[in-house]
Every structure is written in structure tokens, then in C-alpha cells.
């Protein structure tokens, strides 16, 4: 800790040349262990098939609708069959077998699962639905900013870390765009101008340009670059023997964990993982194999590694997953599913009370389906996100986070 304090104090002075170090740097140096509550949002782009992720095996219609791609109900009798049957959650719902890596998380009384949840807008366009879910305003295209940016609790002017809001990847997602500073980081170690001389000149250029767009992003970038230097100086080893899987999600979560543990002021983080648009061959030769199983295996391993890596620090961190819409209740002609409506979300960490599937189950009988084809919606995604923003991040002014959705119905994921 001493080293980091020293670093912050000296670099604060050195980097800003004339004048005092900005207040957030000074405060961070004074209270290096000040922990922040962090909300991590994971977006599954392409519309994951929630009905095969958290399987309603107690529902007969599920098997009627999906003769070749349903996940069989749990069987306890024979060990060998386990890999190809759902993992029982409560006698009605079960997890896809590829999500077995999540076991340590639900052994810890988590995650909370919300089913039949999603956006009330009827669109089945990936683009529009993602846009609505990220703006937090279904049906309204003109919203200029994203819900996760607006979710940041108000901070005093001098107390803003440049990395309060971070997305992992080469682009800043819609969810994080907006009034509060937010940075996209592709790779923590390479997040810098490779050459010191060039760095100083570029910083000056972007600080003084009258091009407002490039000026704003440039300023945010160089503030964040300075802060990252302290992290880059030390190699990172995940704690608790956590093993992140290969691929984008594991890599992103690993870096988010690193940022959280470095106490640099991170409050909201966003990452995404694609490939869920399973129109064809969603399930392989056996129910536990195939496209969806591969994706879920990686997904489960990445979340489990993050949970393991953060250890006790998970008290401060809440992770929530989402996807733009669900998929047709009935399988299509190619052992896949087409664009549907309601879906499933996971949340764990912080004070989240898991081990339970939240939300009313609408059923899958023909008359219960949305537009005669999709899982109906009983929980608005903003109910889930709103509860996390209010109770975990402590930003109770939800009217500013989800305008036009004045009274989210909290599901009790977190006490209070």
C-alpha cells in the first residue's frame, strides 16, 4: 500500500506539472483502501436461448415444443447421464449441464436467476433490442446515453476517478456512453501511448483541440492512462487459483478483476460476448454438446473464475448478465431457434440473495405464449437492473437512470 500511495502522490505532481494534483488523486492517496461498490454488466449479444439455459424441465410443453433440442430433466439415478441432463435447481428449473462450472457460485447461495425477464418492446431486431436494452429506454431511439453511464452515483467534482466507468474491448458500448466519463480499454497493459515524448505531445494536442468530440475523449483517455500506469507496473496473478478460460469474456473479466483489486475507483464495468444467435444446430449430437453448450461452458467458466479470483471482495461487486431478447419457444426447422421475446438473467455477488429463480413463470402452453410463439414477459429488465443500481450501487435516484420507468418493481434480489 505504501508503494502505491507514494506513487500516486508523486505521479500526481509530476504529471500535472504546474498546479495542484486533482482532488480525486489526492483523496485516493489519502485513503487508498476506500473500497467502491462495483456493478459489472455482462451482455450476451445475439440473444441467448434462455429456455435452454435455465430449463423449465417441469413444464411438459417445453418438451413438446422442442422435440430435438430440449435439455432432458435431471436424472439422479445414473452418474453417466448427468452431463446430458439439466442440473436441478428447485424441482422445476434446471441449469444447462454446461453451466456446471457455476456450482461454486450456487454453493455459496448464489446466483439469483430471474426468468421470463426482458424488454417489453416487441422488436425482434438484434440491433434495436440491444440498443433499447443498453439505452435503458425500450421503444425510444432518441435517448442519447446509456443506462450504465446514468447509473453512476453522483460524485463531487473533485472526486471522480477517470476509470469510474470502463468497458473492456475496442469500442465503447451504448450502455456506457453519456455525460459521465467512460473509457474503453482493450488491454490494460497496452493502454498507453507507447512513446513518452509522443504521449506528452498528443496529450497537449487533444487537450487543446477545439474538436469537442476528440477533445472530450482525449482528455478522458489521458487521465485514465496515467492511472493505469500504476497497474501496468505489476504483473497480475488471479487469486485463489482462479483459471479464466480463453476467449473474450474470460479475458475481459480477468481485467475487470484486476481493476477492482487495484482500487483505482472503478464503479461500473461492461463487457460483452457474442455468438448466441443460434438459428441452426443449437444443440449437438447429445444435449450436453453443441454450439450453445460450448458457449455456455466458456461463459460459466469465466464467471466462476471471476468469482473465485475476487474471493471476499465479491462483497463489493455485483455481476449481472443480460441478452437483448429470448428465442422462440418452439424449435425451428434447423435444430435451432429464431428470435423471441422474454429471456433469463443471472446476478451474483454483493448482498444478492440467490439460490432461487425469481419472477412469475408464465408457462409455455400455446395460449400462454407471447404472440403465439415466445416466452411471455413477466419481469421488466429494468426491475432487475434498477434494484442493483439502487441497493448495490446506492444510486436511489432511479428516475434519472431509467426515465419513463418511474416505479420499478424490485424483486427482492437484495434485502432492504
Amino acid at each position, binding site marked *: 500500500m505504501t508503494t502505491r500511495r507514494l506513487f500516486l502522490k508523486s505521479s500526481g505532481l509530476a504529471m500535472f506539472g504546474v498546479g495542484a494534483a486533482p482532488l480525486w488523486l489526492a483523496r485516493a492517496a489519502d485513503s487508498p483502501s476506500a473500497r467502491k461498490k462495483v456493478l459489472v454488466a455482462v451482455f450476451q449479444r445475439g440473444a441467448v436461448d434462455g429456455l435452454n439455459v435455465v430449463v423449465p424441465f417441469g413444464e411438459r410443453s417445453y418438451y413438446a415444443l422442442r422435440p430435438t433440442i430440449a435439455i432432458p430433466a435431471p436424472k439422479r439415478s445414473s452418474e453417466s447421464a448427468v452431463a446430458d441432463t439439466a442440473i436441478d435447481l428447485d424441482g422445476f428449473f434446471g441449469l444447462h449441464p454446461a453451466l456446471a462450472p457455476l456450482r461454486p457460485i450456487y454453493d455459496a447461495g448464489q446466483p439469483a436467476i430471474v426468468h421470463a425477464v426482458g424488454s417489453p418492446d416487441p422488436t425482434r431486431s438484434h440491433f434495436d433490442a440491444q440498443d433499447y436494452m443498453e439505452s435503458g429506454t425500450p421503444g425510444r431511439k432518441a435517448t442519447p446515453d446509456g443506462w450504465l453511464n446514468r447509473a453512476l452515483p453522483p460524485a463531487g467534482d473533485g472526486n471522480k476517478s477517470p476509470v469510474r466507468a470502463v468497458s473492456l474491448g475496442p469500442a465503447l458500448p451504448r450502455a456506457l456512453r453519456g455525460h459521465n466519463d467512460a473509457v474503453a480499454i482493450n488491454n490494460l497493459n497496452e493502454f498507453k501511448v507507447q512513446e513518452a515524448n509522443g504521449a506528452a505531445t498528443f496529450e497537449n494536442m487533444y487537450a487543446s483541440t477545439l474538436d469537442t468530440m476528440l477533445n472530450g475523449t482525449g482528455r478522458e483517455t489521458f487521465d485514465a492512462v496515467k492511472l493505469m500506469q500504476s497497474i501496468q507496473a505489476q504483473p497480475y496473478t488471479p487469486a485463489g487459483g482462479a483459471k479464466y478460460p480463453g476467449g473474450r469474456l474470460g479475458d475481459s473479466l480477468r481485467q475487470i478483476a484486476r481493476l477492482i483489486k487495484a482500487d483505482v475507483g472503478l464503479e461500473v464495468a461492461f463487457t460483452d460476448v457474442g455468438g448466441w444467435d443460434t438459428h441452426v444446430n443449437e444443440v449437438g449430437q447429445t444435449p450436453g454438446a453443441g454450439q450453445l453448450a460450448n458457449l455456455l461452458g466458456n461463459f460459466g467458466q469465466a464467471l466462476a473464475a471471476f468469482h473465485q479470483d475476487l474471493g471476499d471482495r465479491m462483497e463489493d461487486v455485483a455481476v449481472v448478465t443480460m441478452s437483448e431478447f429470448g428465442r422462440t419457444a418452439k424449435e425451428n426447422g*434447423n435444430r435451432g431457434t429464431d428470435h423471441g421475446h422474454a429471456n433469463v438473467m443471472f446476478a451474483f455477488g454483493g448482498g444478492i440473495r440467490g439460490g432461487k429463480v425469481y419472477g412469475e413463470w408464465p408457462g409455455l402452453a400455446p395460449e400462454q405464449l407471447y404472440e403465439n410463439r415466445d416466452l411471455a414477459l413477466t419481469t421488466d429488465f429494468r426491475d432487475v437492473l434498477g434494484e442493483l443500481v439502487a441497493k448495490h450501487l446506492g444510486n436511489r435516484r432511479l428516475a434519472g437512470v431509467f426515465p419513463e420507468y418511474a416505479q420499478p418493481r424490485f424483486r427482492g434480489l437484495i434485502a432492504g
Partner: protein
Amino acid sequence: MRKVIAVFALVVCLGARSPKLSKDEQVIHALNRLTFGPRPGDVEAVDKMGVKKWIDLQLHPERIAENPELAQRLAPLESLRLSQADTERHYPNPQMIRAIAAGRQPMPDDPVTRAAVERVMRRIKAAKNGTGADNGPLEPVVPLEELLNRDQIRTLRTGNVDQKREVIAAIPADQMDDVAIALPPGLRLQLLPAVEPGLRRKLMLLTAPQQLIAFDLSEGKLYRAILSNRQLEEQMVDFWYNHFNVYLDKGADRYLVPTYEREAIRPHVLGKFRDLLEATAKSPAMLFYLDNWESVGPAAPPRGNGGGNAKRPVRGLNENYARELMELHTLGVDGGYTQKDVTEVARCFTGWTIRQPREGSDFLYNDRVHDKSAKTVLGVKIPAGGGKDDAEKVLDILARHPSTARFISKRLAQRFVADDPPQKLIDKMAKTFHEKNGDIREVMKTMLTSDEFFSQSAYRAKVKTPFEMIVSAVRATGAQVDFAFPLANQIAQLGEPLYRKLEPTGYSDANGEWVNSAALLARMNFALSLAQNKVPGSKLDASQFSGDAGEVARQILFTDAKPETLAAIEKQAQGTANAPVVGLMLGSPDFQRR
């Protein structure tokens, strides 16, 4: 004199909503929008010809003599010219190689490919004899450590290009194949700039034949953008490929994309929209990407020979293509269609499929799986029994629909004019689209000759895409590119992996998509690397730039740099060499806009 007039024109126009550009600004503006950035001499050439005449010439690429260097650069990129079937034979993937090894497919004729296949077959056999697993990764037979000494390996890992060249030159010819296979993939890629194109190709072919297709595509796209004299045509190919996006890494599309771009996109970029739409609709690449090849009507016979596998799925409708066809390719999401229309269009397209790979993977209409009953699309009745023509009728309806005219016009204006183009301009373009029966050249002409195009509010209003930023840097500095692939890697770092946009939306044309911290740093780092010749395969001669920072800036921007930009350079680096100034200018805010 001209400056005086320009200033006068500006003063006169002040107060108007969107003042017109000065003559100098018009030249640079047209170059910035129609090309991938001006090269030295371009401004003078356009000025001399006159902007209007030059734009008209760019709208007729067939009248422009092509740069002979381009043909020379494209010559080795063989996969760009092959038919779909030949592509698969010449650049076999591991499954194909196993099929050849098992005698299920013939040996390739091409001697290099044959050697590659034989090499891999030997490895499969060795793996079989060793562990018995022929499904595992293709391990090298001879480890690298037995082929090269420790110093050589270290040089290959960390040496500069010249040092690597020396090591390669010292490898006996008969060991080259073994070395190529033993190299870890990352190192193999690093080595490519150090070898001549022939060996480079062989290196890749001997190790991962299939990768050569992606490699050729990226190189071809870059060489064309950098070198072609038909710049607008290349801009249009980029625009339409992105509009009708296909993701290269989805299964068979790895083989189908070169033909797709060459035969479905390129011939129609300034032609009739209906032709372009049909070419994409019938292209195996699109049929595969959006799953229509597997979509069948209710009466379709079950797949396979029946019996055998009891789990053989019942096939049916897949609406993926139908939806994107309307949302992304023609009407736009607000174009006035319903879920019912999506399903009806999908039914019309049943039977539009692809031949077996061994029969060439071409378009095939299979009447046996077509949904033969009547349909209604956007209120138009399509009677039963129309067969293949059902989908043709859908294409007619969509291509003629007013929403399509507006949507395509808006997309073009967002690309070439501004993120939020004036409605008046979109209306004018849509009118041309309608009156000229979807003639893209005419719509482009309406746009490129409009007052809105030559207005101050459009001037420098667009942030360059990563592809534009990198190509324009190469063009502005006249950097010599002998190996373009590393530039493609840089473009991916900036956020736009070529041919690898997974979603059917394609990349956004909005500024906000490209301006973020990670991408901005990547732009600055690329700029410095290029100027200091640290980008493998590209060589920039900094000595050509002379004068103070302001003059160097003018040689790169073809206009004056902003005073703030120059002040930052002068503050930091007084009297330094040219290379840093070149790099700083390429990474400056000024250079990020077009």
C-alpha cells in the same frame, strides 16, 4: 487571389444556415469523401480538372486507367480469383485434408498445395502411430529446437527484420517445410514480413492453408484502397459489403466470401440496386450466413435417407434472412413491415439454397423444399405455385418500396455526407432512387453534386473509420507497402477487423462508434509506428518532408493544421527530426477527420 475570394465568400455566407465551401475546401472535401485520402499531387490534379468533372469521372470507374502497380500487387493473391470449388481444393481446411488422406477427396493438382497436404498427412499418420488421436491439433513432427539453434530461435523471436532474413536465408531449402510447421503460429506471422511473397505464401500454405483466404482478402482490400485510381469504386465496394455484411469466420463462408465480394458486390456497386439485391440474395455466402439455405417449407421431405438416425431433425422454416433482408438490406427497421411479413418472406425464400460443396457450392433453387401455398407480403398477394419466382417477386416489392429508397439514401448520405444528414438531401436522393429505378450511380450523383454535400456543416464532419484512417495515412505519406497484412492487424486494433463483423448490421458509420479511449490510443500508436517504420511491411521515407512543423503538417493534411495542434508539437519538440512530426500529425485530431 483565390484566398481572398475564399475569405470573401465565407464572409458573404456568414449567417446563412450552412454556408458553401470555398473552392479549395471543395477540392479537399471531395477528395476526403470519394477517396481513401489524398495522395501527394491529388489536390493539384483535381483542382486542374475541376471538382465536378473529377467527381463525374469517379462515378464512371471504367473510364479511369488503373494503376499498373495494383495488378502487380494483386497477382500473387490467388484465392481472390478462384471459383468457390477451387478455393476449397487449393486451400483445404483440416477436415478436407483428412478427407484427402482417407481417399474420400482427390489429391490437389497444384504442387505446393499437394506438398502441403502430403506434409499434413504425414503428421496425421505420425500422430496416429504415437497417440492414436487423429483429431487433435496437428503437432509438428520435428521440434523447432532440433532444426535451429538457440541463437537462431531467439533472433526469429526478437530480432529485427534484417536479422530474421539472415536466419531464414541460412536454413537449407529441404528443411524449410519442417521449420515452417514447427514455428508457433504467432512467430510464423511475425516472420512473414521478413520473407519474399513466394516464400511467405508457402509458409502459410504449409502450415494453415485455409488462413490464406482471409489473408488474401485483407491484402487485396488494402492494396486496392491504397493504390487504385478508381477510388470511389473501392469506397462503394466497402460500403456495400458492409451494408450486405457477411461474417468471414462463419463455417463455409471462409470459402465463399472471395466469390461473394468479387461477383455479388463488386460488379453492382454503381449499378441497379435490384441487381445488387438479387446478387446478394442468391449468393452462397449470404444464403449460408443468414441460414436461408436450410430453410424449407412444411411439405419438405426429411433430410438424409431416412432411417438410421432416429434423431434426424424435422426441417422447417428459418426466418433469419427474411428479417435482415427487410430490416438491414432494404426497408429499414421502421420501414413498415410486421412479424407476419417476416414469416411470409421466409416462406417465399424456401428452396433458395446451395449446391453440395463437391458440386461447386453454387446457388440452387430446390423446388422440392419450397413452400408452395399462397403468401402475402406487405399487402401484395403472391399466389400459390409461384416456385422460385416467389422470392423474385419479394425482391421486386422490396427494391421498389419507398421505404427502401429512403433507407438506402440515408445510409449513403450517412457514409458520404454526415452522421445526421439533412432530410432535404435524403428526400432528393430518394426521389432519384425512385425515378431512376434504383440506379445507384444516379443517386450518388444527386448526393455528390448537392449543396448539402458541399456545405460547411458537412466539411470535416466525419471521423475516419479505422480502415480509412490507416489507408489515408499510407496514402498521404506515400509509404511503400510490400506486405499489407500487418496493416489489417492494425485496423483490427483500431476496432474494425476486416471481413469480421459478426453481426449482419455491419459496422456503424457514426462517429461515436470509432471515438473511444482504446481506439484513440491505438490510432496514436499506429501513427508513431508508421512514421518510424515500425509497422512490418510498410516503409515510409521521412526525408521527403521538409520545413518546419507547419509545412510538414501541410504535406500530410493537404491543408493547414489547426494552430492548437502545431502549438502542441512546437511546445514539446523544438527542432526535432521529421519522423516524429510526421507521426504526431498522423495521430493528431486534425488527421482523424475527413
